[in-house]
């Protein structure tokens, strides 16, 4: 078994402009932020981003990487609205595919299982159909004849997910309270890259969680990157909770272009190690 471990830089170097990139997690929870930060620092452009959106979407919007976003929401959870996403919509005019949360999940399930679409009543009657004129409905072939939205498969070139543990083969484990949709992203994409809090031996995978915590199989994983604290500042329980103080700092900076420039310079001008150092320095300075 050859190892699949990579560096953040190697993962990003394997991506191309114009790709459709799925990002796991949910809102400001267990986002592969180290990979997102590295994309922001790269020359990639013109991405279609598929995400239950949080600061991953915000950072990518701020860096001008997003041509189209496919989502049901963008939020920081404890702070309802994402400032960069708002500005991108209000001023930069990024393209948006806006789906109901359940429609989005059905798009993932369809893609994960190589179905062209999955039918759901969610969305009927709403403006989701108005702003997505490509969406079609189907009628049940059975006696009920019910009309349903045919949610097309959300296929993607690449998925990026962050898990608590993984082995070098690409098996990945979540130890927190919610798997989110990360396994569906992994199956929906042609290639999946897993970042993890800690790389462990295969033999040690069951030391911290039961077999059902092994969410993603190596059959769906191209590369694995160990990025301790790599979901920062989003939640990655039980390794760490959301860094609420830092998220407040981020949101305040993001709401003001000049403050954002200072934030970017301080935290996002170097590589991942530099980011983690800058966060540590900020924490010490703030007495946290």
């Amino acid at each position, binding site marked *: 078994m050859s190892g699949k471990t990579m560096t953040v830089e190697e993962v990003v170097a394997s991506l191309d402009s114009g790709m459709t990139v799925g990002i796991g997690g949910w809102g400001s929870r267990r986002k592969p932020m180290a990979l997102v930060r590295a994309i922001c620092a790269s020359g990639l452009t013109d991405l279609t981003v598929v995400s239950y*959106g949080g600061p991953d979407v915000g950072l990518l919007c701020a860096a001008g990487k997003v041509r189209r976003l496919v989502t*049901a929401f963008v939020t920081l959870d404890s702070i309802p609205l994402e400032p960069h996403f708002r500005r991108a919509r209000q001023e930069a005019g990024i393209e948006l595919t806006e789906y109901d949360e359940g429609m989005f999940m059905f798009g993932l399930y369809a893609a994960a299982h190589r179905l062209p679409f999955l039918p759901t009543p969610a969305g009927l009657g*709403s403006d989701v159909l108005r*702003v997505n004129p490509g969406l079609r409905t189907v009628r049940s072939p059975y006696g009920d004849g019910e009309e349903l939205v045919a949610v097309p498969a959300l296929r993607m070139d690449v998925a990026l997910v962050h898990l608590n543990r993984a082995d070098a083969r690409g098996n990945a484990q979540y130890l927190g309270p919610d798997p989110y949709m990360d396994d569906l992203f992994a199956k929906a994409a042609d290639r999946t890259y897993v970042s993890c809090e800690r790389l462990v031996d295969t033999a040690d995978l069951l030391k911290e969680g039961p077999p059902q915590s092994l969410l993603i199989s190596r059959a769906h994983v191209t590369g694995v990157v160990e990025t301790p604290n790599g979901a920062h500042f989003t939640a990655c329980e039980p390794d760490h909770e959301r860094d609420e103080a830092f998220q407040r700092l981020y949101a305040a900076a993001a709401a003001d272009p000049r403050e954002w420039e200072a934030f970017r310079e301080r935290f996002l001008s170097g590589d991942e190690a530099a980011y983690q150092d800058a966060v540590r320095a900020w924490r010490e300075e703030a007495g946290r």
Partner: protein
Amino acid sequence: MSAVGGGEAPGTATRAEVCAVACAELFRGDGEIVAAAVAGFVPMLGARLARATFEPDLLTTDGGPALTAEPVPLGARAGSGEGGVEGWLPFRDHLWLVLNGRRHVVMGPSQIDRFGNMNISCVGDWERPSRQLLGVRGAPGNTRLNTTSFWVPRHSPRVFTEKVDFVGGVGTDRGAHELRAVVTNLAVLDFATPDRRMRLRSLHPGVTLDEVVAATGFDLAVPGEVPLTRTPTGEELRIMREVLDPKGLREREVPS
């Protein structure tokens, strides 16, 4: 709903407590379903209060994926000495449960019209909004498939609008499953009219009809006699203050 308050100590309840009891009343008769009161502290408190009193079969969460064995205080996590966990409802199962139907959700509209069409996506033209908001979230599926209620902590003409800029949640004229009621900081409204448009059901104690009409940006159906919203009983006040919300998070959402 009766004009006669059940309160043992009327006048001592805060506005937030009246609102929380009105939110609890949303779930009366619901039985063994999931109360998904995602719109704020007050409806979350209301759902847990309903379970702690007159609707004991309700399923409630700790705000995360845990279905708690007992209603837990606002801000507490299940398993922290509050009787533990009786079930697990991660986001994906929540979304499947929307289709299954055993769920009553309370959402917080940024805009809502007379038929209960609601918007949390954006203000202005969707193509290039003047104010981007959350995005549609689960509103289309919730309203189409589940009993849905609404919580509006600041009743104003900016929220109660003639027309919503984006129909996320569908109204009674666009195929809603059941829009049960709208609880605001001023009143309770419902859709019990022949054409299922919004009507004033009750005024919170201390609120005038004129205030509500002025704070509503469309013509509200107003019955000849408008009762007062039920005030909390002494036991309900005790449970809210001592058990379910000792930190008083409800008062932050609706200042008295």
